[in-house]
C-alpha cells in the first residue's frame, strides 16, 4: 500500500503541472520514505525468520567481498597507471599490485562464504535491509548535510578556511583551501549563429554553414575575416545591415563546447600540531575528500588575468550508509533475480497460486 501511495505521489510529481513537482519535494515523501524504510526493515526481519544469523553473516561476507572488488579495481587501475609511467614508478606499481591482489583474495574468500551462506530468500531479505540502510543514510543526510560554495581565483592568492552554507551560516573548515591553477580544454568545432533584432530582443534566425573561409546562410555569404573582436563581446561578431540603414542583424561565433576542465587545489590540514599538505586536481565527476568534506568542481568563469573557480563543499554524514544501501540494493536484487532456483517450477507454482 505504501508503495502504491509513493507511486501515486510520484505520478503527481511526474507531470509538469504548475506546482505539482513541489509535492514530492515536500515533507510528504519524507514521511512516506520513513514508513517505507521501517516496513522494509520489518519485511527483511520477517523474510529472514529462522535464518537471521546466517543472513547477517552472509551480508557481512558480501560486504567484504564487495570491498575486495573495489580495492581490486581501484588499486589495479593505479598499478597500471604507475607501470605506464615506467622507471622508479614500477616499485609503486608493484605495491599497488600487491594491494590489488589482497583485494582479489578478499573477494574470492568472502565471496565463497557468501555463496555458501546465502540463498534466494536471504537475498530478498538483503534487498529489504539494504533499502533500510539507504533510507537511513538519506535521512542522516537530510538532518545533518552541510552544503556550501566557495569562489576562488585560480592564481593561488586567495585561501579559504571558512565558507558560507546555502542556509547563510558561516562554517569553519577543518582545512585551508586554495586553487593554484585551472585548465580547460575545448572541442575544436566552430559554429556560428545569426540573430535579428526585434525591438529590444535578438531572435535567432539560424546557424550559417561553415565553408572554407566564409559563412553561408540561404543566399548570403560572409567572409570569416570580416568578423571583429571587441572587449565587450565574448566572441567575434559581425553586424549586418538589414532593410533599413541601421544594422539589424548580428552574426556571431558560438562559444566552443567545453571538453574538460580541472582545478589544481592546495589543501593544508593539521595533524597533531603538524602541517600536512595535499596537492590534488579536482575534476567534474571526481571530487576530493578531506576530513569528512567532499570538494566538487562546480563551474568557472573567466576573469581578466585568471579564472574564477566555483567549488562546492559538502559534508554528508549519511553518505556512507546511502552508498552502501545503493550498492546493497543493486547486488541483492541481482542475486535474488538471477540466483539458481532450487525449485525450477516455482514461478509456475506462484502463478497457479
Amino acid at each position, binding site marked *: 500500500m505504501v*508503495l*502504491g501511495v*509513493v*507511486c501515486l505521489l*510520484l*505520478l503527481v*510529481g*511526474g507531470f*509538469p503541472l504548475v506546482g505539482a*513537482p513541489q509535492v*514530492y*519535494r515536500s515533507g510528504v515523501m519524507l514521511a512516506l520514505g520513513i514508513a517505507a524504510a521501517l516496513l522494509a526493515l520489518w519485511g527483511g526481519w520477517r523474510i529472514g525468520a529462522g535464518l537471521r544469523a546466517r543472513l547477517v553473516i552472509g551480508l557481512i561476507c558480501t560486504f567484504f567481498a564487495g570491498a575486495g572488488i573495489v580495492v581490486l579495481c581501484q588499486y589495479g587501475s593505479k598499478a597500471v597507471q604507475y607501470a605506464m609511467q615506467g622507471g622508479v614508478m614500477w616499485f609503486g606499481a608493484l605495491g599497488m599490485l600487491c594491494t590489488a591482489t589482497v583485494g582479489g583474495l578478499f573477494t574470492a574468500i568472502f565471496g565463497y562464504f557468501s555463496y555458501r551462506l546465502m540463498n534466494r530468500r536471504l537475498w530478498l531479505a538483503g534487498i529489504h535491509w539494504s533499502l533500510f540502510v539507504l533510507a537511513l543514510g*538519506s535521512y542522516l543526510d537530510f538532518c545533518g548535510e552541510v*552544503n556550501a560554495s566557495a569562489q576562488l581565483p585560480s592564481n593561488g592568492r586567495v585561501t579559504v578556511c571558512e565558507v558560507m552554507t546555502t542556509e547563510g551560516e558561516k562554517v569553519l573548515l577543518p582545512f585551508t583551501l586554495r586553487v593554484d591553477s585551472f585548465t580547460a580544454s575545448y*572541442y575544436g*568545432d566552430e559554429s556560428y549563429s545569426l540573430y535579428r533584432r526585434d525591438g529590444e530582443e535578438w531572435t535567432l534566425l539560424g546557424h550559417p554553414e561553415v565553408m572554407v573561409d566564409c559563412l553561408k546562410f540561404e543566399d548570403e555569404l560572409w567572409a570569416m575575416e570580416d568578423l571583429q573582436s571587441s572587449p565587450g563581446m565574448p566572441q567575434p561578431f559581425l553586424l549586418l545591415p538589414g532593410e533599413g540603414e541601421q544594422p539589424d542583424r548580428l552574426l556571431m561565433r558560438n562559444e566552443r*563546447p*567545453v*571538453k*574538460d*576542465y580541472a582545478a589544481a587545489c592546495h589543501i593544508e590540514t593539521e595533524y597533531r600540531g603538524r602541517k600536512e599538505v595535499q596537492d590534488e586536481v579536482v*575534476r*567534474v*565527476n*571526481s*571530487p576530493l575528500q578531506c576530513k569528512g568534506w*567532499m570538494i*566538487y568542481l562546480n563551474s568557472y568563469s573567466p576573469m581578466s588575468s585568471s579564472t574564477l573557480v566555483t567549488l*562546492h563543499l*559538502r559534508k554528508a554524514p549519511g*553518505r556512507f550508509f*546511502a*552508498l552502501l544501501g*545503493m*550498492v546493497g*540494493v*543493486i547486488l541483492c*536484487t*541481482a542475486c535474488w*533475480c*538471477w540466483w539458481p532456483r532450487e525449485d525450477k517450477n516455482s*514461478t*509456475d507454482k*506462484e*502463478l*497457479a*497460486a
Partner: protein
Amino acid sequence: MTVFIILLTLFILLLSVVCWLASVFRRSQAARTAEVAAFGSAVALFIANWCLAESLPFGNMRHVLCFFPLVLAPASLYMRHCRGVELTASFAAVGAFAMLGALCMPMQAAWRQMPALQSPWFAPHVTSYVVAYGLLAVSAAQALLSFRKGSCDSLRAADEVARLAFPFLTFGLWSGALWADAAWARYWAWDIKEVWALITWCVYLIYFHLCGASVTVRRVLILVGFAAVLITFFVVNLLPNIVSVHSYAQ
C-alpha cells in the same frame, strides 16, 4: 557514412522482420540465421555510429535505439539456452520496432560529451537501461500474448524476462544516483526523468510484491510497468518545453 548508417539500419529492420516472420511460422533455422545476421549488422552499425559520433554512440535517442538489437540478440540466446524459453519472435519484433524508431530520428553528426558525462558510470548506466527496456518490452509483448492465448505459458515467459530485466533496471536507477553523487554533489534531483525512472522501478517492485495475486493483475502490472518505461524513455525526452537535467538525452 550517413547513407551507410541509414542503409544498415534498414537492413537490420528487414532482418528483424524476417526473423520475426520465420519464428511465427516455425522456421527456426531461418530465424536463427536472420537473428545472427541482425546481430552482426548491429555490431557494424554500432561501430559506424561510433566513427560518425567520434565518441561512444549514446549521445541521442537514435544512437540508443540503434543499440537495442546489439543487446537483444544475446538476451534471446540466454533465454533460449539457459532458461529454456523460446522468445525469438518477441525479441525480433522489439528489435524491429527499435530500428523503425531509429529511422524516424534525425541523423546528427558528432556529439560532444560534456564534462559531466565523461564518467566511468556513463557506459554501464546507459547500457543497463537499454538492456532493461529491451527485455521489459519483450516481457510486455508476452503479457499481451497471454491475453490472446489465455494460457499461463506466455505469462510465465513474461515473468522470467521481467526477472532477468529487473536487476538491470535497478542498476540503471541506483548507478545514476551514485554517479550524480560524484558529479552534482547530490544523489537525487527530483528531475522529471529521474521521477519517471523511479515510478517504473516502483511499478515493477509492486509486481514482484504481488506474486500471489491473480493472473490478470500480474498481466496488467507488467503492461502498466511497460507504459511507465515508454513514458520515461520517449515522452519525457520528446515532449517540448520540459526542463530536465537529462536534457542532453533529447
